[in-house]
């Protein structure tokens, strides 16, 4: 198997589907509709949507006509393309579940991993942001992730800090260092910056929690962004999730992409964010429709690792039959399946008894794991159909 790819056993998949199911049900309950886009898109779609960001991370293939296609590294760009080109209404609440792909193998990372997420298109206000934040908390809680924390930052605040730093030709270098979370390089670039701005930039990793907004306001920088963030926090109060939400101005996400609030969710037991997202008001414009949008993507394997839900394989009733009893056995099996039971029917050699139900020439038997058996009467078979053990 190529590095970074994996199989999912039935047990593993049952657990994944259980978590996925929780998220789906939550998204549906909030009025979101599922959408699916192809795994492959034109390379040009990705460069248009993502800017310079991912070139190396794309999994590129050449099709028969020489056209360059790439496997989706994320879902927001295709959903934006879909909404911009195919969606009739200006407002959309959409969700997706599917695998995303990376062309390059990070250290021990996957090249294919399952994601789920939402995109709320068409509303630019704090209420739309708050809805998405609250939905993020609710979805993770429904998936039985304990101790969910969602941090809210703002891409505009970071831009405003960089603008106020007085850097000119090094501004891009500083932004890249910030994006890489390289505070050592950032510190050396900011030697000439105004002390409060320099202090705030270098202190970003701890600019969070109660009082962070107030401290940030004290700088007199990025007022518009901080006002927006405050409005989102206020709008979130109406949902029963405020205790899980905090200001975290140190959240650093892609500058080419996010235009407003950004969010990340954490939980004990996961060394990386469970989900991430934010407001991206300029993305749809790149596909010809000027519409604001906000959303998040959930890293399902990380949720799976922290969820207490656990999925178990539903039990399957094993039915064995000897040739002479085949017609009788299969007739009962069909009834059982119609009644909602999971049944596997297998021909058995004469005299053989497997655990479960055994249709033999000499009658119908219930066989225990230890091989002991007892005969079943017709009413016992009916009891089985109703889900009771005979």
């Amino acid at each position, binding site marked *: 198997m190529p590095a970074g790819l994996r199989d999912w056993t039935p047990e593993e998949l049952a657990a994944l589907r259980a978590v996925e199911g929780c998220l789906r049900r939550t998204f549906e309950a909030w009025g979101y509709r599922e959408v699916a886009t192809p795994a492959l898109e034109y390379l040009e779609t990705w460069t248009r949507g993502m800017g310079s960001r991912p070139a190396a991370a794309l999994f590129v293939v050449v099709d028969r006509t020489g056209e360059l296609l790439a496997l989706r590294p994320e879902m927001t760009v295709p959903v934006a393309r879909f909404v911009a080109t195919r969606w009739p209404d200006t407002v959309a609440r959409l969700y997706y579940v599917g695998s995303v792909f990376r062309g390059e193998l990070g250290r021990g990372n996957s090249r294919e991993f399952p994601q789920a997420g939402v995109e709320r298109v068409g509303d630019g206000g704090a209420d739309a942001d708050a809805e998405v934040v609250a939905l993020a908390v609710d979805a993770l809680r429904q998936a039985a992730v304990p101790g969910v*924390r969602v941090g809210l930052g703002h891409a505009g605040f970071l831009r405003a800090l960089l603008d106020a730093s007085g850097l000119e030709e090094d501004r891009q270098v500083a932004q890249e260092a910030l994006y890489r979370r*390289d505070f050592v*390089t950032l510190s050396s670039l900011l030697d000439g910056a105004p002390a409060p701005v320099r202090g705030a930039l270098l202190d970003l990793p701890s600019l*969070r929690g109660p009082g962070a907004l107030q401290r940030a306001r004290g700088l007199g920088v990025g007022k518009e962004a901080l006002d927006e963030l405050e409005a989102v926090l206020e709008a979130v109060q109406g949902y029963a999730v405020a205790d899980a939400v905090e200001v975290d101005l140190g959240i650093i996400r892609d500058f080419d992409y996010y235009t407003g609030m950004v969010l990340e969710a954490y939980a004990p037991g996961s060394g*990386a964010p469970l989900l991430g997202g934010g407001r991206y008001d300029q993305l749809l414009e790149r596909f010809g429709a000027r519409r604001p949008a906000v959303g998040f993507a959930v890293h399902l394997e990380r949720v799976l690792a922290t969820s207490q839900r656990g999925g178990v394989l539903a039990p399957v009733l094993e039915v064995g039959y000897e040739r002479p009893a085949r017609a009788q056995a299969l007739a009962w099996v069909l009834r059982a399946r119609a009644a909602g039971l999971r049944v596997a029917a297998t021909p058995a050699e004469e005299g053989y008894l497997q655990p479960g139900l055994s249709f033999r020439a000499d009658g119908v038997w219930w066989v225990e794991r230890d091989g002991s058996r007892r005969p079943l009467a017709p009413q016992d078979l009916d009891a089985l159909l109703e889900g009771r053990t005979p």
Partner: protein
Amino acid sequence: MRSLTVALPSGRLLEDAVRLLRAAGYRGPDGRDRSLVWQWGELTVIVAKPVDLLTYVERGAADCGVVGKDVLLEQAHEVYELVDLGFGRCRGVVALPAERRHLWEDPRRHLRVATKYPRVAERFFWERGRPVEIVELYGSVELAPRVGLSDGILDLVMTGATLRANGLVEVAEVFQSTARLVVNPVSLRARGEAVRELVSRLTRVVEGVP
């Protein structure tokens, strides 16, 4: 609450990293302990191979780590790089055999370069528009040009003695490196107080504040 876990790199940076922790007031076991997990008061200290260190920190198996800038440049990562610890100073350079150093003068010349830093090398040559073939090796890179495996190398130098001993001369500096303190993004938030304490104690030592 479990103690903060700090990953230290085995090899050339280990001794200085241990000295730094002691100078910052952390007390650990003395002597040449071969164990890979130590209890240092409120810190759990683990020792990992330098190439694996970011994996421990990125996945949250360690909250913090000490790692060379050279490794941070080579490996894609999502950790926070917070403090330049100052020790382990070295440089990444391109070096050619003395008798063939003229090859560097022609920027269109295709060079075969042996290195433990293929991504750094790729970026360095690409940014300068110089054609290159990268030969990825895991050790004794300086051997490659001697046996005709490559034209030159991109490798770390500390004193330059290894280069001289192998008849190599530096033709370009690629990066400068020192040890850095890195932090897992979730630990930074979930264990902010403990991380801040470690950062400030280490920073005081590094900056020479009593």
